């Protein structure tokens, strides 16, 4: 179509960019917000690492990264991440195949068990494992010692190996989720034609099923590797007391020890740069791997895949799976609930030792705790709504307006997703402590909110844009043809169609914000403790039973919200 016509319709002229319309305003807004929320913290980290206030300073960076304790932390981070990723992948793929393709019974129960780790934050899981297996004090250790008459504790969770075990059992459901959904989407006739060709079940798995699932497996592995590299909660809960540090725990430790001293914070930024580099390498390698195999396996008429008969192996496998899942998923929950009911930590689990006093202590007249619940709820709702609004606007701009530089917008928005929460928090401290236009948010709840928005924006963006891409251009065009304005088409057609995605994406922010610790532990002030911080403080100060009670409260809140999401989004799969 020729663009040289004289257009009388002002609306069409706006589409050519001749006037300043709604789309242009939104585009500019997107760039402005992302620059402030994402670019600024990242730039501040690099700036402070290599600029000591007067000149370029590379010496500090070198000194910090080659300090022995920091080298050990780096080594620990990589060892933990790599080993736990490998095992989490193996276990996750195995369970995905078992539930997605075999005729093992009780799949419903197992699927439900798999959904639990997603609701419990990693630091709570680690706290539970610590209660079970920490030296002579761990409850399971004590139980085993008394039964088998052992002189010393059979397990010690406060070691590198202990951290790895916790991360494996915490992360393998993430791999499972990715792979099982790929298996469910895979056209079953791909496997059936291999059977017809004469291949036995195991040969089909090896030559067809596994190769076709590799993209899903590697994306699950990537997810686990990056989350593990940036994980703060697990090494903090079981490692820090025994001086086992990883990069994220070391960074937080440096900031805390600096006590506001600028030089100390600069050392933490130097380590942050190292952490970002390590994560980037992991990202880079995985991108390379992912590029090698991209196939479209989602086609064909949807038909139930033929389930592979396990025959004699069926019940042994069922028992092993159930015992394993119960142990790694339910046992931590049970121990936290039991400890929350104890009169004092260390007492045996006996009827006369149980009490509800811990709950009254934390929920009645304990301002620090009740404030933390309020703060987390406030942060969850506010960052949820802001991210939802920004996510809808961003995805609309990126996929429908498509301005120059929309690729940059998308990269900026998803960048914090791969940035460790610790690093994002340090960036926020540097950016919002008066360095820019004299704005000081430090020690207030607003700095946590800004950090959450940056961290979780990619969640709403991904979910909304996936939904928006399914809304065909012709739908909006049809509404314009019926006489609706651009604004009316948006409100009457586009937004209602992506509403289900909007609702679920709100909770995709609300839920992680509720159980967050990594970022808020660096950003909280006297009046802005979050739930996670409150639990960690109670535990650090020796109130184990109260920490457990508050954890139970947190888990209940999260589970209730999760139930609400399930209820709202039921039967509304896609547009």
């Amino acid at each position, binding site marked *: 179509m020729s663009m040289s016509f004289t257009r009388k319709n002002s609306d069409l002229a706006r589409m050519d960019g001749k006037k300043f319309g709604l789309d242009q305003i939104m585009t500019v807004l997107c760039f402005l917000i992302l620059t402030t929320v994402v670019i600024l913290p990242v730039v501040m980290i690099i700036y402070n690492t290599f600029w000591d206030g007067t000149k370029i300073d590379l010496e500090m960076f070198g000194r910090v990264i080659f300090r022995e304790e920091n080298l050990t932390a780096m080594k620990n981070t990589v060892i933990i991440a790599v080993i736990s990723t490998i095992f989490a992948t193996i276990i996750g793929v195995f369970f995905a195949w078992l539930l997605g393709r075999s005729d093992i019974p009780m799949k419903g129960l197992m699927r439900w068990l798999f959904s639990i780790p997603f609701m419990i934050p990693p630091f709570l899981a680690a706290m539970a494992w610590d209660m079970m297996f920490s030296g002579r004090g761990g409850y399971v250790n004590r139980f085993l010692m008394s039964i088998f008459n052992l002189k010393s504790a059979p397990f010690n969770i406060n070691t590198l190996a202990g951290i790895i075990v916790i991360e494996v059992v915490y992360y393998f459901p993430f791999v499972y989720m990715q792979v099982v959904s790929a298996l469910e989407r895979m056209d079953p006739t791909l496997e059936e*034609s291999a*059977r*017809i*060709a*004469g291949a036995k079940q195991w040969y089909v798995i090896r030559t*067809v099923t596994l190769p*076709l699932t590799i993209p899903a497996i590697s994306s699950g592995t990537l997810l686990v590797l990056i989350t593990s590299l940036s994980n703060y909660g697990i090494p903090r809960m079981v490692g820090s007391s025994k001086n086992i540090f990883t990069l994220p725990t070391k960074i937080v430790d440096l900031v805390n020890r600096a006590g506001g001293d600028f030089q100390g914070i600069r050392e933490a930024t130097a380590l942050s740069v190292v952490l970002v580099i390590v994560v980037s390498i992991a990202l880079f390698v995985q991108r390379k791997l992912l590029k090698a195999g991209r196939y479209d396996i989602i*086609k*064909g008429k949807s038909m139930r895949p033929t389930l592979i008969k396990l025959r004699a192996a069926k019940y042994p496998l069922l028992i092993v799976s159930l015992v394993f899942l119960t142990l790694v998923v339910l046992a931590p929950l049970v121990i936290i609930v039991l400890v929350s009911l104890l009169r004092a930590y260390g007492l045996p689990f006996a009827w006369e030792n149980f009490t509800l006093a811990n709950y009254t202590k934390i929920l009645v007249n304990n301002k620090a705790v009740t404030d933390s619940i309020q703060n987390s709820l406030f942060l969850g709702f506010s960052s949820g709504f802001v991210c939802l609004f920004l996510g809808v606007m961003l995805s609309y701009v990126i996929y429908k307006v498509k301005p120059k530089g929309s690729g940059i917008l998308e990269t900026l928005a998803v960048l914090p997703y791969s940035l460790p929460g610790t690093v994002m928090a340090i960036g926020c401290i540097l950016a919002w402590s008066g360095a820019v236009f004299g704005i000081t948010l430090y020690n207030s709840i607003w700095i946590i909110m800004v950090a959450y928005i940056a961290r979780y924006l990619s969640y709403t963006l991904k979910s909304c844009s996936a939904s928006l891409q399914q809304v065909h251009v012709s739908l909006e065009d049809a509404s314009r043809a019926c006489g609706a304005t651009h604004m009316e088409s948006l409100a009457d057609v586009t937004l209602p169609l992506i509403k289900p995605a909007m609702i679920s994406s709100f909770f995709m922010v609300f839920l992680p914000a509720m159980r967050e610790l990594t970022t808020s532990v660096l950003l909280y002030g006297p009046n802005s403790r979050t739930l996670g911080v409150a639990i960690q403080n109670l535990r650090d100060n020796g109130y184990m039973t109260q920490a457990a009670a508050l954890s139970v409260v947190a888990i209940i809140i999260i589970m209730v919200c999760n139930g609400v999401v399930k209820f709202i989004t039921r039967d509304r799969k896609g547009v």
Partner: protein
Amino acid sequence: MDQIVLKNVTKRFTTKTLGTVTAVDNFNLNVREGECFSFLGPSGCGKTTTLRMIAGFEDLSEGEIYLGGAPVSIRSRNLYVPPEDRGLGMVFQAFAVWPHMNIFDNVAYPLKVKKVPAAEIRERVKKALKHCSLDGMEKVFPSDLSGGQQQRIALARAIVTSPKVMLLDEPLSNLDPKLRETMRFEIKKLQKEFNFTIIFVTHDQSEAMALSDRMLVMDMGVVKQIGTPTELYNNPTDKFVHSFLGQSNFTNVELSGGRVYLKGDRSVPLGMEAPKTGETEMLLATRPNTIEINREEGFRGTVVKRVFLTDFTEYIVALGDQTVRVQAPHRNMFRAGETCYLRFANPIWYSAKKDASDAERERRTLV
């Protein structure tokens, strides 16, 4: 010899909404060696389920299946030969070509599984590719090919082991109409060369008519009729078969004293002899192209609508409160509103009562 035999094959599913559904009900079939046999029916009629039971992907609820005289599924003896040991070739609707293997590896797979020596594999793959017009494309990956070419890979993969039986599950439905005709021809050609027995599942009547030596029509899990395409078209023994093959008029009529009247109007009889069934109400089935329309004699009606189609003119004619569709040459055209006379040839009679399939269809749509 009978290459494929099904005896009393029944398949029942239990679903949450419908309860127990009989997807395939007491299916009996003998397919002769070298025959091309089609299963025709609307989606959900049970044709694909039957095919998957022959392939070994579905268990039987009852019945027996024999391939080349050997039992492969016998419910009562709990005998079940897995798909890989049935020695079949199969082509699926969505091609099911493995995207992580190139054309050579896709086609060589059945031979590799059987541990055929590498040199022989190369030879046989080359031959199969040649027959499917894919020669020289060994190294190409499926994602770089069109749908038609992908389906050729699937065909080559199915014939490379020279199977006795070839199962085709709507293999042409994902192709565009033009390509469909070419592929139809190629499948026939391959069958002549390799001399395999074909079971061809489709919901496209012209595909089934063009390809098959014999065919059957299924509805709601029940086989309605088995025969050659001409038998089924000319002498449908069931009103569903009549309506599924070609175009049909069904007129509600009353029978009295050896004469036939429109339902609810005994003033003028339709000029034809009543069938001797003892029923007083029946369905009169006619084909639009066998009814003669003229201005002189026959049963009186009124032209409601005229549509000029490329090869003929179509009239909707009102007979009392019912209408029939009539196709006639372009000569002496009638106008809408004009009185006309119809003469019926080859009337076919069906009971006006609902049959079991009608009842089952109602049950499924109500839920």
